[in-house]
């Protein structure tokens, strides 16, 4: 173990390699490019492969192709590239292909401010691709957590056969902090195994658990993968008795899981005020809470690492404890919509900044006073 000064984007790349990622396909875009640069340098050292594709649509497609070929795969991008990736993120959700997509959020819409931070893609992460689907999105608050959550993203993705989005931002991505990297061999890695014989193999079976086994191509399991609604062996179908069980299973596999929802709580007995945040804004939230507590006020702090699926039960409990939940975000109010859905609009005070600058502690303190 060594302590290093490292950028968030570098920590993400190292986390990916520690988790067993052996294929990266991407396209340069500020402020995520360092992830690609580190991957292009580090992957060959562990026998992994890197390719710079012609655009983000192709990057996302290649990532899925790479995983179908048996390599844990990742891409990283920012706003405009994230928009282009939506098409095949939906494909990965439909075909249940594990993969990790990093979005180092920058100010949008459109080209926006490439070097300015934002949390403006929170709703896009949930609903960016067309059609109802399940998704997991994680958001780190520090460089160390960027490493940890990247490992977690791979493991959740493999375990549940689902695309996992690492929704970080320009601040965490470019910030340097000391980080203690573990020996990569000791990092927990989820590895998919197929025990079925090829003739019995069903890539999308709805019985025997909610996550069917996934065979890589070229291993004797010749089967069909499609973005169309499909039956248990993967052939396109329009039959409701084949579509409905699939819909129910993919919903159930995420809703019933007990290891997806990650959050940190720091509650004080009798506190009637709470601050809930995530990502870089959670750093401001942490600071504001410290200031309020120094003045003798009681405040609860809730930091979400998993933003999708939204940890509604935990937030519901927080809402029961408190009269007011302040939700600072670097956008015009996106995760706040979820908090409002769970806690009720009257309890929620939004603190928003969508001009590329961080929310300041003063903005939170002011919201606490009103």
């Amino acid at each position, binding site marked *: 173990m060594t302590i290093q000064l490292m950028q968030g984007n570098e920590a993400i790349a190292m986390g990916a390699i520690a988790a067993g990622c052996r*294929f990266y*396909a991407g396209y340069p875009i500020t402020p995520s490019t360092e992830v690609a640069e580190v991957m292009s340098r580090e*992957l*060959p*050292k*562990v*026998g*992994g*492969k890197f*390719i710079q*594709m*012609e*655009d983000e*649509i*192709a*990057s996302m*497609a*290649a*990532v*899925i*192709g*790479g*995983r*179908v*070929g*048996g*390599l844990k*795969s990742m891409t990283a991008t920012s706003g405009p590239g994230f928009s282009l990736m939506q*098409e*095949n993120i939906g*494909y990965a959700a439909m075909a249940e292909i594990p993969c990790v997509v990093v979005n180092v959020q920058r100010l949008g819409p459109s080209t926006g401010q490439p070097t300015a931070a934002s949390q403006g893609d929170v709703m896009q992460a949930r609903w960016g691709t067309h059609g109802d689907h399940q998704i997991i999105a994680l958001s780190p608050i520090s460089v160390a957590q960027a490493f940890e959550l990247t490992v977690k993203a791979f493991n959740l993705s493999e375990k549940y056969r689902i695309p996992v989005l690492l929704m970080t931002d320009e601040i965490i991505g470019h910030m340097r902090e000391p980080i203690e990297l573990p020996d990569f061999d000791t990092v927990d890695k989820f590895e998919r195994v197929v025990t079925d014989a090829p003739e019995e193999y069903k890539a999308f079976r709805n019985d025997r658990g909610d996550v069917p086994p996934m065979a890589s*191509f*070229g*291993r*004797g399991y*010749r*089967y*069909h*993968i*499609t*973005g*169309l609604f499909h039956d248990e*062996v993967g*052939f*396109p179908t329009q039959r409701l008795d084949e579509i409905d069980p699939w819909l129910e299973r993919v919903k159930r596999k995420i809703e019933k899981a007990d290891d997806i929802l990650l959050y940190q709580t720091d509650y004080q007995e009798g506190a009637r005020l709470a601050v809930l945040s995530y990502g870089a804004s959670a750093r401001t939230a942490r600071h504001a809470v410290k200031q309020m507590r120094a003045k003798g006020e009681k405040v609860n702090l809730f930091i979400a690492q998993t933003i999708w699926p939204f940890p509604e039960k935990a937030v519901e409990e927080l809402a029961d404890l408190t009269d007011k939940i302040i939700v600072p975000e670097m956008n015009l109010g996106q995760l706040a919509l979820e908090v409002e859905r769970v806690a009720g609009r009257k309890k929620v005070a939004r603190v928003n900044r969508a001009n590329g600058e961080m929310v300041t502690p003063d903005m939170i303190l002011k919201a606490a006073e009103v």
Partner: protein
Amino acid sequence: MSEHILSVHDVDVSEGQIPREDWFESSATLHNLRKNKKFPTIWCAGCGIGVVMGSLIRAIESLNLNNDQVALVAGIGCTARMPVYMDYNTLHTTHGRALAFATGLKIARPDMKVIAIMGDGDALAIGGNHFIHAARRNIGITALVVNNSIYGMTGGQYSPTTPEGMRATTAPYGNVEPPFPVCDLAIAAGATFVARSTVYYPLELDKYLAQAISNEGFSLVEAVSYCHTTYGRINKLGSAADMMRQLKDNSVSKPAFDKLDPDARAANTKIVRGVLHIKDRPEYTKIYGSLVERKHEEELRLRNVGRH
């Protein structure tokens, strides 16, 4: 195919070789179709895509490849439905993206034969960027483009290969855009094997596909077909058999074309069939694979030194 069927379509028996009665049962085609997939196919009766599917199976069979080692990657459209019927590793992706998915797969499994199956709209309009970059990299993928000059699945809109002046549902007064010459595009972009034939000459397609799959780098086979249901109907070109006959009458082999004098070559409007381009150039996954191997070994050596 019986004489009766040929006569219904007004085809002279002498125009086609009538296969033996047991041909189908004994054919490679039948044995490499999926046993558990419901047939018939989604294609219209008389469609040329089935001819190409037969050719592809015979080409793979002729190379004695293990089906486990073959991956078929397709985009969206009539042609892109081909893999679902075939007993290989099959990946039916999003519109235009077959080559991008195939690129990831080929990098992960350079030992596998990866074949991308696309229509003209799939490969050249929405997938045009992926097409030129896959060719530029010379990645070991065989691109099979079935060119029927139209978007068939959506009902007959003009595509990047619809000839000028021809009609489509979105070109009701005639197409004003010039078409892409598919093979020229692939050659210019860097493909190392390029061949073309038509569905009237399935045995040629068998041969060219086998050569393309054997080529280490990026190969393109353009299989010129037709769509009697949309393009043929809108442009009053007759039945499937009529359009098949037009393909027969409107093509010339490369050796015959090469013998023409320069003026005649310049004036030629017929489809030139043959191997149009072969180039010896290193394949992408080979070059990058050896780089990775070298770096990996270096790193292992460094680590071992550190431990001692």
